[in-house]
C-alpha cells in the first residue's frame, strides 16, 4: 500500500505538472479558483500573530538531511501549501509539527508556546489535527466510528461507567455521534456512515480521514497529500472541501500537495522545499515566477530530462 501510493504520487507529479506549465491551471481549477473570496476570508491577516511558527528546524536520518534550517510562519486562517519534489522533506516537516518526529535542531511555536518536540499525546488538546500521506484510518471501525474517534481526546467517562451505561458516558456518546454526523453531512459522507472504512475506495477513505481530523474543529489542520492518487474531479472536490472547512471553522490549514495546479488555486501562500531547504515562501503568483523554484522544481516538469532525474531522486 505505501509503495503503491508512493508510485502514484510520483505519477501524479509527472502527469499533472507539464499540463500546468504548458497551459496554466487545469480546467477544473480555473473554474474553482476565486482569488477575491480568498483574500476576504483571511482574517486581518498580516497584523495577527502567527498561529504556527518554526524556527531553525533541522532533522536528519543518518546521513540524509531531511530538513535544514527551516523557518516558517503561518498566520491564523491561512491556507499554506508546502510543495517540493518527492523526498524534499515535506512529510518530515508535518511530522515535526505534529511531534511524530523530534527535530534535531530548532523549535516549533504553537500559539505562543515553544516546543523542542511537540507533545503528540496532547496535540488534539492543543487544537491540532492531521491526516497522513498513507491512510491512517482504523480499518476495523465504521466510517462513523472513525470520525467520532477524532473526539477521543475529550473522553471524560471511564470504562466502568461505559460498561454500565451510567455517569457521563451516555451523554458523551450522544454528543460525539451527533458531531460526527454533522461533519459527515458537511463532507457528503452520510450515505456511507455505517460502512467499514476498509471497504471504501481510496478517494473516500481520504475524505473520511479529513472528516476525522475536522470533527474536533481544530485550529490548525495539517494535511499530508490529501489529494494524492485522486482523479482531477476528486481533487477539485477535495480542494473545495478544504476551503469550505477553513471558511466554516476558521481553521488554519497547512497542506502538502503535489499537484501544482491545485495548490495555486487553493492556497494563500506557498512554501517550496527542495532537498530539505526552503527555497521560496510567497504568494502563488510570486512562487510561479520565482526563478529558483522554476529551476529546482517547476522547471523540471517542462523538461523531460530533468523530470527523469527528479524521478530518480523520488526513488530514494
Amino acid at each position, binding site marked *: 500500500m505505501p509503495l503503491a501510493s508512493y508510485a502514484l504520487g510520483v505519477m501524479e507529479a509527472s502527469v499533472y505538472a507539464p499540463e500546468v506549465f504548458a497551459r496554466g491551471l487545469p480546467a477544473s481549477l480555473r473554474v474553482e479558483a476565486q482569488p477575491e473570496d480568498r483574500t476576504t476570508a483571511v482574517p486581518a491577516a498580516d497584523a495577527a500573530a502567527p498561529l504556527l511558527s518554526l524556527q531553525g528546524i533541522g532533522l536528519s536520518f543518518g546521513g540524509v538531511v531531511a530538513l535544514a534550517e527551516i523557518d516558517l510562519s503561518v498566520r491564523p486562517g491561512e491556507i499554506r501549501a508546502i510543495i517540493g519534489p518527492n523526498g524534499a522533506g515535506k512529510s518530515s516537516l508535518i511530522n515535526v509539527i*505534529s511531534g*511524530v518526529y523530534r527535530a534535531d535542531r530548532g523549535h516549533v511555536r504553537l500559539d505562543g508556546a515553544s516546543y523542542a518536540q511537540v507533545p*503528540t*499525546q*496532547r*496535540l*488534539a*488538546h492543543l487544537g491540532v*489535527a*492531521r491526516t*497522513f500521506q498513507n491512510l*491512517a*484510518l*482504523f*480499518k*476495523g*471501525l*465504521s466510517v462513523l*466510528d472513525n470520525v*467520532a*474517534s*477524532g473526539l*477521543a*481526546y*475529550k*473522553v471524560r*467517562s471511564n*470504562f466502568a461507567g*461505559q*460498561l*454500565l*451505561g451510567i455517569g457521563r*458516558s451516555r451523554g*458523551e*456518546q450522544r454528543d*460525539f455521534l451527533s458531531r460526527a454526523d454533522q461533519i459527515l453531512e458537511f463532507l457528503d459522507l452520510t450515505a456511507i456512515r*455505517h*460502512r*467499514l472504512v476498509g471497504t471504501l475506495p481510496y478517494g473516500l477513505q481520504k475524505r473520511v480521514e479529513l472528516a*476525522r481530523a475536522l470533527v*474536533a474543529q481544530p485550529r490548525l489542520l495539517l494535511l499530508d497529500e490529501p489529494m494524492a492518487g485522486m482523479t482531477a474531479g476528486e481533487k477539485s472536490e477535495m480542494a473545495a472541501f478544504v476551503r469550505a472547512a477553513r471558511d466554516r471553522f476558521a481553521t488554519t490549514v497547512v497542506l502538502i500537495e503535489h499537484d501544482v495546479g491545485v495548490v495555486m488555486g487553493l492556497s494563500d501562500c506557498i512554501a517550496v522545499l527542495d532537498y530539505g531547504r526552503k527555497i521560496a515562501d510567497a504568494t502563488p503568483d510570486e512562487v510561479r515566477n520565482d526563478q529558483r523554484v522554476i529551476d529546482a522544481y517547476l522547471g523540471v516538469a517542462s523538461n523531460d530530462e530533468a523530470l527523469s532525474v527528479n524521478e530518480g531522486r523520488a526513488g530514494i
Partner: protein
Amino acid sequence: MTAMTSDVPPALVLPKWIAPVLLLAFAYGVVPLIGSSYLFEAILLPFLALGLAGVGLNILTGYAGQVSLGSAAFMAAGAFAAYNFNLRVEGLPLVGSIVLAGFVAAAIGIVFGLPSLRLRGFYLAVSTLAAQFFVQWALTKFSWFSNNSASGVIDAPRLSIAGFALDGAVGRYLFALTVVSILTFLAYRLVSSQTGRNFIAIRDNETAARIIGIPVLKTKLLAFAISSFIIGVAGVIWAFAYLRTVEPDGFDLDRSFQILFIVIIGGLASIRGAFFGAALIVVFPLALSRLGGFLLGDVFDSGVLDMSQRIVLGALIILFLILEPDGLVALWDRVRRRLLFARQST
C-alpha cells in the same frame, strides 16, 4: 457485512438480543434436564472455562492488538488467588473470592503488560512468555500458595452460593454458565463502548490513535488488566468447577497456546468467536479419539491420539490462517447468510 444484513428483508431481521436470549434459555432450561454427566464433565465445563478465557484473550489480542502467550499464567493466578482468598479470609463468600482473584490476575496482567509500552508484535509475545514462566515458577516454588500441600495438588473448595451447594455436575455447570454469561455480557458491552473503540484504534494504527488524543499507554494497560481479569476468572472456573483441583501444571505454556488457537480459529475481535473456537478445541479431541478408536481399534492408544491430535490441530490452524483468517465466526456468518438468501428466493 453491514451492507449485507441490510439486504435481508425486515421480516428476517430479528433484534440482536433474540439469539443470545434463546441460547441462554436453552442452556438454563433445557440442557440441565437432558444432559448426561459426561456432557457436563467432559464437554460443557471445559468449554465454558476455555470460552471465557478466549473472550479475555480476544479483548487483548483481537481488539487491542497486543499479542500474549501468557494466558495460562493469568488463569493460574486467578485459580490460586481464589483458592487462597477462600482459604485464608474468614467468611468471604465464594463470589467475593472470585472477584478478588480477578483483581489479582488483573494486577499481574498490568505488570506483565508494561513491556507492551515499548514492544510490539512478536517481541511483545516473547516478553509475555515471562509471565508464563514466572507465575508457574512462583506457584511451584513457594508452597504457601498451595497451603504447603506435599504434592502441590490441592482440592478446590466445594462450590456453594448463599449456602446453596452446587456440587454435582449440573450445579457446577450452572455456576460456570452464570459467571461466564455475566462476564461475556460485560465484555460485549466493553467492546462496543468508547474504550473498546479505543482498543481497536490502537490496534489498527497506534500513531493515529496517539495523534487524535487516545491515551495509548493507559489504554494498553487497561486492555491487559481487563483481559487478565476475565482470564483469571476463567482460571477459577477451570480449577473449581471443571477439574476440582488446583495445580500449577495444568496452566502451562500448552494451555496458553490452546487459548491463542481458540481465538485464532474462532475469529479475532469477535466475542462469539471465542466460544466457537473453544467448542472446536474441546470437542475435536473427543471426536478424534472416538473416530480413531472406531477406525483403528487398539492401535489408536493415548500416545497415538495425542500425536494425531497435535498434527491435525496444527494443520487446521494453518488452514484457518490461510483460508479463513477471520475464523469460524466468519464462516458461520457466511453460511447463515446463504441459508437466509436461499430461503428467501424459494
